[in-house]
């Protein structure tokens, strides 16, 4: 640009230019050096609120209602929040408390017949357990443990009887058999209330979504 020499101020208007534009010195806005106050100053004091018995009743009831809703199954938090950091701090006591709270919440009760079917379909638990696994799980009910042990004992005895004449096996082979037996017992004792096949690591979420996005097949 022409006229821009050394020592010439650029970027701002000169006093004369401002005056021609109609801005007189005192009208110039002051440079803001601090943010404005969060709350504007009150010109007058607000009216004090009356307290009546009915108001007190309503305030207390509302507090109860909100607490009830917060503890109910109908209070939903996004999954990331409710189980956030599970992988990072697995043994965080706070986290386990939060998990307990989620578990303690009663289950939601919806009357699906009065709602579109797509909502129910999305909420259905998908059973991807193969039949054999289901049968296996059924066998490992805690009540049947003693019966099962007896059956196994009898089986062992009969097997021993059968194998007695041929008992030339080495100790190492016996150990292998015991180990197999232990494996079965392990599943019965430790994992009796936890179905491995039901475990959902969360990776399948999107896959389900993709399948369902197209809508049901008619």
């Amino acid at each position, binding site marked *: 640009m022409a006229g821009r020499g050394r020592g010439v101020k650029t970027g701002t208007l000169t006093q004369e230019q401002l005056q021609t534009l109609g801005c007189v010195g005192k009208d110039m806005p002051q440079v803001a050096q601090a943010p404005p106050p969060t709350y504007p100053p009150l010109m*007058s004091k607000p009216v004090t*609120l009356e307290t009546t018995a009915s*108001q007190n009743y309503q305030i207390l009831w509302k507090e109860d209602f909100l607490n009830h809703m917060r503890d109910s199954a109908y209070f*939903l938090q*996004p999954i990331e929040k409710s189980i956030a950091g599970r992988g990072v701090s697995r043994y965080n006591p706070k986290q386990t408390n939060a998990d307990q709270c989620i578990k303690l919440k009663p289950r939601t009760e*919806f009357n699906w017949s009065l*709602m*579109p079917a797509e909502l129910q379909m999305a909420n259905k638990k998908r059973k991807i357990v193969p039949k054999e696994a289901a049968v296996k799980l059924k066998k490992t009910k805690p009540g049947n443990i003693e019966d099962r042990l007896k059956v196994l004992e009898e089986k062992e005895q009969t097997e021993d009887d059968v194998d007695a004449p041929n008992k030339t096996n080495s100790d190492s082979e016996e150990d292998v058999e015991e180990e197999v037996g232990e494996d079965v017992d392990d599943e019965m004792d430790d994992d009796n209330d936890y179905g491995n096949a039901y475990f959902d690591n969360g990776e399948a979420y999107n896959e389900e979504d993709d399948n369902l*996005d197209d809508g049901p097949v008619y």
Partner: protein
Amino acid sequence: MSIDYGNLCSVILKQCFGETVQLVGDCLFAANARSLGNIVKSTNLTRREVSTALGILIKYQLVTFQANDVNPFMAEYSLKRDEILYILRYSRYVHLIQTKYGSVGAAIAEELLYSGSQTASNTLLKCLSNNEINEKVETIRDTFVQMIRDNYLIKLPMLVPTESGEPELVPKLHIEDYDLFNPPEIDLAMLAKVQARTVQASQLRDAAVFWQLNFKRFHQDFRDQCMISAVERKLGSSAAECFKYILKQMYERTDPWQRQCSNPFTVVEVKQVVEKNSSNLDLIRHLDQYVALLADDSLHFIRKIGEMGGGQYVVDLAPAFESLALACIENVITERFGSKASRIFRVVRMKKYIEQEDLQKEAMVPAKEAKLLSYNLFQEQFVQIKTIRKAGGGGTGPAKAFYLFYLKYKQIAKMLLDICFKALYNDITRSNYEKNEHKRLIEKSQKLDSIVATMKERGESLEYIAEILETLTPPEREILDKVKNRIKTLSKAELSLDDTIFLLQMYLYHSAQVSVAPATKK
């Protein structure tokens, strides 16, 4: 619907149903109707989360759905925007029922509000399991039926069975108007069996009939109360009682939600009702004068239309709420700009159109101050300016123009309503902030209270209890008291704001022109 109202709805949904429902609610608020896939895409939530959130909103009657016009197998969901605000009034509804039907009625209303909608039998079962209610099941059932007869409870639309008998992908729900307040058949013997767990709850005869609070009926009562208390403040208790009986007589022949004015009634009819129900001798003796007083008053609650039957009158709902709303606006102006500004506002209201110079003379306010105040009012949109240009002038100089101040009542009411929504949003947000900020302290004091209560039950020594109470240190107690006080003030402000919102909403409803196709009402 304004942005402020959207924010308010959002924070109410978050407070009651959590963040997921809030996100879904926000998404639905922005559009008239959306499909499930659309909501999933816009909220970035999983399909299951969105479905559960929608299920909750449908259960609590905050969302409706209908089949898409093009694809009848796809549902479109829309938010009942007005009804979200009703959540803030739940405590008021319960209080009204408490005063009318006692604790049993309150327990029924509470159960219905807690679960959104419920069958009669389930509500009764839940009330029976409530430890605070020691009434017989017959009493609870009778109260429930009475509440239906008084229209405080309303039947929800039921499933329309298909021809093939198979459920439809998007179920159709319908209910006839005559069936809305039809009491259900409650089999107490079966109920006892369900309670003893010998029979499933689904086998009950009314398992498919759901009930909800009829909010319109409550609003009718609030509206009446609003008018009666206004008459009481201005003309005394006898006039208020007289107006109460006038309203009672009005409902005999008028739809409660008729917009402009009621159907006519005569003084003789009111006299009969008063003599039958009232013990106020002053009112019985001077009923004619009280009715004339109400008709002559500047509130314009009733208007004389004929001489038949000792004088024929109508209740003028539109002008009544206009005067109430204007009184409210005047109060706001007095609090914000002072009494002189309020005087200027009244002068503009009286004169309808007025120039600046006349205004300062009429209001008897010094010229400079009047100018400042009227411009302030104009800036905040409490008064409007109409420019009338004088014809002619040509190129000889600037054309002369008159600047007249005038009022647009509805615009002011809408603006105030928005301010109220914004204030309510700020109030709830601040209250939540206070609760979160001092969560640890509040929880500690709650825990302490419950421990002390159990100790007292057990009969522990006072010294020991005092020792336990000392775990909350004096500075902590001081902070706690301050926080509790602040939250209580915010809650009270919430109630007062809701009162103002209700009044302004009533004014806007009654001042609206009667539409050709009347809106469907519950």
